[in-house]
């Protein structure tokens, strides 16, 4: 029976597929797509393509015509050191934010895991910084971290000696401080995602481990952490790639200083744009685009693979 049926079915299949295809086109017509695609193409992809063009011109506010200049903008940015230095700052900042935000978020999720009234309140409270403006958060911490600000005053009374640490004035450590502020603002979101991840872990797996005599940390390391992989992927990728595109918190706390040690690519782009040097700003914007694009795929693929291995 199978021998007689098989060839017949094979002959029918293309027609079936074509019919199904035509039907699916009628049932789900393409014109539903066009408005969204038009907006995406005009207001997202066209400016991106412009980036690849105008980065190689002398477009500025000082002259009316725009001419091609080849790699001049990039040579200039390399020669004055801003390209490499801003790129380095942006990468370090993004990595620090990703680490701190995940540490804080996971820590909070583990502390607030059980469904008690106090924990429910605390979870909601930790989401308040997430809904606040990042610019506002930056100004608040600028006040707290001033040389004669509340943190140094507190440390002075605590230690007895005069403490005046320039939290936002160190060319080495300020980038860490600002990354921690960024992580503080977003840790509530990471916490929620870790909480959701913890909830998906089967109770029985943990009970089995408990019966085997495993303690809290052993269960965490051997059972829960590996099972949290999807949450780690999401949190790490969004924190890393999101903070590559950061601006508000750095602008509000240091505006790129001291000495350019916290100058993210977006801070440079904003400043240079304000000076009317549009082509240089565009060149840096292209650099940001390329770096994020180059990073996004390996980071996501690597983290996804880690999930699959487990």
């Amino acid at each position, binding site marked *: 029976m199978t021998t007689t049926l098989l060839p017949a079915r094979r002959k029918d299949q293309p027609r079936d597929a074509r019919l199904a295809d035509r039907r699916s086109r009628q049932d789900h017509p393409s014109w539903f797509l066009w408005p969204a695609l038009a907006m*995406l193409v005009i207001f997202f992809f066209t400016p991106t393509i412009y980036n690849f063009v105008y980065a190689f011109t002398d477009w500025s506010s000082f002259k009316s015509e725009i001419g091609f200049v080849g790699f001049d903008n990039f040579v200039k940015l390399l020669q004055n050191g801003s390209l490499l230095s801003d790129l380095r700052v942006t990468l370090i900042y993004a990595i620090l934010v990703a680490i701190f935000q995940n540490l804080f978020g996971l820590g909070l999720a583990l502390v607030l895991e059980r469904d008690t009234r106090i924990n429910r309140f*605390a979870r909601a409270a930790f989401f308040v910084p997430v*809904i606040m403006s990042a610019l506002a958060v930056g100004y608040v911490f600028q006040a707290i971290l001033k040389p004669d600000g*509340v943190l140094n005053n507190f440390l002075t009374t605590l230690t007895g000696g005069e403490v005046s640490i320039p939290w936002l004035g160190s060319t080495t450590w300020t980038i860490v401080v600002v990354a921690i502020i960024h992580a503080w603002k977003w840790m509530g979101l990471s916490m929620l995602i870790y909480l959701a991840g913890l909830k998906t872990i089967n109770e029985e797996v943990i009970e089995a481990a408990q019966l085997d005599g495993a303690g809290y940390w052993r269960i965490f390391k051997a059972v829960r952490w590996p099972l949290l992989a999807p949450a780690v992927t999401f949190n790490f990728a969004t924190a890393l790639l999101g903070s590559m595109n950061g601006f508000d918190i750095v602008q509000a706390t240091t505006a790129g200083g001291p000495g350019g040690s916290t100058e993210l690519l977006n801070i440079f*782009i904003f400043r240079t744009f304000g000076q009317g040097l549009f082509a240089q700003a565009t060149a840096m914007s292209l650099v940001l685009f390329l770096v994020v694009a180059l990073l996004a795929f390996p980071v996501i693929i690597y983290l996804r693979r880690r999930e699959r291995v487990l």
Partner: protein
Amino acid sequence: MTTASPTLKRARRLMQPTAAILLTVLLLGVPFMIIIFTAGKDQGAALNPDLSPPATWQLWSNLATVLDEGNMVQALFGSLLVMVPSVLLVLVLGSLASWILARRSSRSMAVLYALAISGIVLPPAVVTIVLLLRQLGLAGTAIGMISVYTGMYLSTVIFFVTGFIRTIPMELEEAARMDGAGPFRVFWKVIVPLLTPTLATASILICLYIWNDVFYALFVIGGRIDTLPLNLFDVASAGLYLQRWHMIFSYIILMSLPLLTVFVFLQRKIISGITSGAVK
């Protein structure tokens, strides 16, 4: 473990709530108290924002001053003017497109989907957007800003909604189609009602982004239309120079209130909506 004394057990049971309260007070209570206390002081007392309560509270008059001097009413309307149409546009266009992207399975659809969601990670070309808007005659206008936000956040909506529509069984659509419903009717009567929770989550996220956005607004409408974050940027730039922290913090309180109020009332839905969308 089984040999632990009752007192040790009780201590262990008290450890978690204590840690929770301590963390909340230290990490959130302290900064929020500094904000509220400083906003309640006069300029002299607010020079160094700290944890001491104001000698005489003048929070209301500070809020009234900043509402007036910071042009907050105008900025509120500016913020709403760019946010509301952007969110509506993104939701409507995004869900229309998502339905097709979720249901048609050709290779070209897969490519279109990948392109459509690439905006989630790729940074917008913020400088050349200004050039494009100038060429289109939209520079510095609300329509220009709305278009830019729509182009930027469509990816987020398409990602969330397409993922959700794929979990809706096709049979539900088929049943409506048997009754003679056309594509638009099927979409409106079958798909949209099921989408409401997903759309609510997406719109909350996008409201959050747009309400607090200052970077893109500085490029596109800076100096032309006031929004709350743009005005905060101006107020703070002038205020920091004059050390007027009580004004800056008052502005921050007023600016955060609308989203905070929404959050207090809808917090359970918001939190469960965001967590269910992220981890699959």
